[in-house]
């Protein structure tokens, strides 16, 4: 013992500081283990076991490593005056080991300089993964210990690393024992028959688990939740697959109950992303009755989290597709749809075996991951393609801040042809990609030394075998992911420059740049003209879509050529969703007729909202100009449907046809939003943003914004009624 602390508070920090190893991973594991022994534990409302994070400020998280929640720390200090001095001492001692200490010290300056103008970032957080936590349910920790000892012998001389793993197994076992005792204790005073039943379930589970495998779905849910809360709640992976053996052998009434309990837990904790169905490497369909049970439950109880994605392939049963349509009609936007035929090809491009490629799941918002085998970054960075265009127009200077962020690609006024302009844009884009990946790799190399995750090293294949931590090139697959944002803004702007500056010579480049610099002040004619130009991505216009394909295929291909520190390659993707507005906010005025700071950017690979005017088939045709087998991170198209159309007798055939046509022709991912009344109200107030919203009036489908006000009111009232 290095320090003789008297306080019983902050066990993770004490465990860390008192471990004298040189290897930080082992110190983290020591702290973590002590935290499991000493932190308060509890059950949630359904008596599912919650581990770890209670009552401490210095803690560990997969996204942040060891970190201190300073507000909570101050509260703890204030509430425990006797321990205050010692706590402050602990805080000071642990500080150099907190992840943000090295981040700020070592690379935050450059990171911030690039990120603050809304151009790009790389590295900066530790990323999602899908560790095979279900292995504890399936095999028990006793088998894990055997595996650790086997490899300790094979890779002799790595005792610190293997100790870190053993400590984590200790922590899991400790937790199991404590939950057994807690259930026992609560049973002595509990009188509610339902609670007694649940507590008995906990007791019988931890009677033999986690050391030994679970025996049914009830036990597997209980152990899995404990593991999730220990890991810090990420994405549960291919739930209908690894749970199916348990599901099969469990009493139908019991398993339905626990399926709801675990979903309630997922929703409460805003668990990220869970995956259903799909195909194996031989093209066999993986759908089972648990798949249907989950979709039925989401439809019935309208669970909004976790994000559920469903893997489609050419042998997906028609029946399942119909159930998906009904589930989406419930209005929660779930499930999202992924295409095995495309994703697996994208994975194989990244050096992932065909068999492993077919185990892919979704993680985070919508990023592709290989469960139990990879650290794919998730995500390692983002590049705003619209900002790249803006920098090209201003010779590398950010128009919104005046700061010198990009490459000096020349003053566009001097470019005689569109080809010259386009070359400069591509150089700027390459520079952005190179900067983001450089920053990410720099970060990855720091993480390897400072942000070990001994728990994930246990559950991600390759780490135990190679004696390398999850953050230090342990996992079999170590690819990276950089996402593209504001794609449509860049494409539409390039099309406008090509057509109106170089071909039609309607404006000179000098005029255009002057107008952009003045945010179109005094250039109303130009602003209106560019904004209303029909040359916008998402309308099935070859002229525009060809540019789109060229730019994004280039971006994705370049990423594939760059290696990650983790021992793989980068790949691209696009899934901005709620963050779209942030990226839009940082853009200066652009040649597609957008003013500075308008927050409206595309929420997917599709059109800028309001710029697509020809319905979903046109959007789909435009998006198929991208090669979807290149972006290995997830390449999302979000389509919106009016609820009345979606649930009408024609709705099912319509949706299934769009889905099938998009995927059979090479689309990677699709989400369907069934439109809410809120959106209709916004469409009434801001029709320019909703040109493509199709609603049903009588027997006819029409564009919402073209309807007279009274009819719009009518549709809104009706939709509100549908939602009531």
């Amino acid at each position: 013992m290095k320090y003789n602390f008297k306080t019983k508070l902050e066990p993770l920090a004490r465990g860390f500081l008192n471990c004298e190893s040189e290897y930080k991973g082992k110190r983290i594991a020591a702290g973590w283990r002590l935290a499991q022994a000493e932190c308060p534990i509890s059950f949630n409302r359904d008596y599912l076991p919650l581990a770890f994070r209670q009552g401490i400020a210095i803690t560990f998280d997969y996204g942040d490593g060891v970190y201190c929640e300073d507000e909570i720390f101050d509260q703890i200090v204030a509430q425990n005056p006797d321990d205050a001095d010692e706590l402050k001492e602990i805080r000071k001692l642990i500080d150099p080991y907190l992840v943000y200490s090295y981040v700020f010290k070592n690379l935050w300056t450059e990171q911030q300089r690039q990120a603050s103008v809304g151009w790009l970032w790389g590295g900066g957080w530790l990323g999602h993964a899908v560790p095979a936590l279900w292995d504890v349910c399936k095999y028990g920790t006793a088998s894990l210990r055997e595996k650790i000892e086997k490899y300790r012998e094979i890779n002799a001389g790595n005792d610190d690393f293997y100790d870190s793993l053993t400590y984590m197994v200790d922590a899991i076992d400790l937790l199991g024992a404590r939950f057994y005792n807690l259930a026992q204790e609560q049973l002595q005073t509990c009188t509610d028959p339902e609670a007694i039943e649940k507590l008995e379930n906990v007791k019988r589970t931890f009677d033999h688990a986690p050391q030994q495998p679970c025996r049914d779905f009830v036990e597997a849910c209980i152990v899995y939740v404990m593991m999730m809360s220990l890991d810090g709640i990420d994405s549960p992976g291919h739930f209908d697959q690894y749970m199916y053996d348990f599901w099969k052998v469990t009493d139908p009434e019991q398993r339905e109950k626990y399926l709801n309990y675990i979903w309630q837990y997922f929703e409460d904790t805003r668990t990220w992303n869970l995956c259903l169905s799909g195909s194996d490497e031989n093209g066999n369909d993986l759908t089972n009755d648990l798949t249907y049970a989950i979709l039925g439950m989401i439809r019935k109880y309208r669970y909004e989290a976790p994000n559920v994605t469903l893997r489609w392939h050419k042998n997906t049963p028609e029946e399942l597709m119909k159930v998906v349509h009904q589930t989406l009609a419930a209005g929660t936007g779930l499930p999202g749809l992924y295409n095995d035929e495309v994703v697996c090809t994208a994975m194989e491009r990244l050096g992932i075996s065909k068999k492993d490629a077919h185990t892919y799941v979704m993680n985070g918002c919508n990023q592709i991951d290989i469960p139990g085998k990879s650290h794919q970054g998730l995500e390692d960075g983002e590049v705003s393609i619209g900002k790249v265009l803006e920098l090209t127009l201003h010779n590398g200077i950010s128009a919104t801040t005046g700061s010198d962020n990009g490459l000096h690609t020349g003053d566009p006024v001097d470019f005689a042809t569109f080809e010259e302009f386009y070359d400069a844009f591509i150089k700027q884009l390459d520079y952005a990609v190179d900067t983001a990946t450089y920053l990410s790799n720099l970060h990855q190399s720091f993480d390897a030394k400072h942000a070990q995750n001994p728990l994930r090293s246990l559950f991600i294949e390759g780490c135990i075998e190679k004696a390398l931590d999850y953050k230090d090139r342990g996992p079999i697959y170590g690819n990276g992911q950089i996402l593209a944002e504001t794609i449509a803004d860049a494409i539409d702007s390039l099309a406008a420059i090509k057509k109106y500056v170089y071909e039609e010579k309607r404006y000179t480049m000098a005029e255009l740049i002057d107008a952009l610099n003045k945010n179109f002040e005094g250039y109303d004619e130009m602003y209106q003209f560019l904004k209303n130009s029909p040359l916008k991505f998402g309308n099935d216009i070859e002229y525009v879509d060809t540019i789109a394909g060229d730019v994004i295929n280039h971006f994705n291909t370049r990423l594939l050529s760059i290696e990650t520190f983790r021992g793989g390659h980068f790949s691209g993707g696009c899934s901005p969703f709620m963050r779209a507005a942030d990226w839009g906010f940082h853009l200066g005025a652009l040649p597609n007729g957008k003013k500075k700071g308008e927050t409206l950017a595309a929420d997917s690979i599709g059109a800028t909202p309001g710029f697509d005017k020809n319905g979903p088939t046109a959007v789909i045709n435009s998006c198929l100009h991208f090669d979807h087998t290149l972006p290995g991170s997830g390449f999302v198209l979000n389509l919106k449907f009016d609820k009345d159309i979606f649930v009408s007798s024609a709705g099912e055939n319509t949706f299934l046809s769009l889905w099938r046509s998009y995927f059979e022709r090479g689309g990677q991912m699709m989400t369907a939003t069934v439109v809410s009344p809120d959106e209709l109200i916004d469409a009434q107030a801001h029709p320019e943003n909703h040109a493509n919203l199709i609603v049903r009036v009588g027997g006819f489908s029409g564009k919402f914004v073209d309807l007279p006000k009274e009819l719009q009111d009518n549709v809104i009232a009706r939709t509100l009624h549908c939602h009531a």
Partner: protein
Amino acid sequence: MTLSYFNIQKFCIHDGPGIRTTVFLKGCPLNCLWCHNPESKHTRVEVMFHAEKCTGCGRCLGFCDARKRGEDGRIIFDRSLCTACGKCAERCFNHAIRVCGKQGSIEDILEQVRKDKPFYETSGGGMTISGGEPAMQPEAVLALIEAAKAEGIASAIETCGFGNREFFIRAHELGALFLFDIKGIDPEKHKANTGVYPDLIHKNLDMLLEMGAKVIIRLPLIPGKNDSEEDLRLLTQFLAQRKDRVDHADIMAYHELGVSKSHQLGVDVDDTIPAGKAFAEGWRSVLRESGVEIRISGE
């Protein structure tokens, strides 16, 4: 050969089976009091002016006499002086002025239609030729159907039935599906409502049914105009006589969408007709007695 049309709309799902692209032609021999596509009545190019969207910016002024600024500052549009040159529409960024109608070759139209062919294949859809009235431009419409057929695209024709029988026979021979409007039975009432007697329409329908053509009967029902007890009784009888040859009939309940468009065209229109949706179930319960399956479009 060219067609006079005013719109090609993608992703139509209520104009026949599956996902469809609908070509809206200009020109119609009928003059229905309730017309929901008033911009399709005339073959000539027309200018639509949406006064609510006009901001009075004045960019449309100064190169013709049809547009002037009124004393209240608003833009006044004198249709009698308009040559439909379209210059004003080009300059209007608020979409308040729209030129409606253009000439296109078969290839011009097919170029748009074929883009969604993959969706027709997965949904059982195709092209719908609507109007206006396809039978008003028979040769060009038949050429369009034939050219589409050669590319494996199925066609449907949305028709009021008032046209040359030869057109319907040839369209049937090319495999077209007919979405055939029946707007009333009583001859005088039909004349008052639509401007024509229904004999030819009913004859054409019977001829198509006799030939075994693919026909979906559509029943535009307009509150107060063609939905009286007597109207429905006659309609039920009409359907009952044809029940063995008709798969189903769609009720097209009146909606007010056409009113605003009529105003934009400067055309007087009866704007007092209530929406029909609320009556649809009642109509259906009467018409069902014909023995023909009655659907309400859009449900």
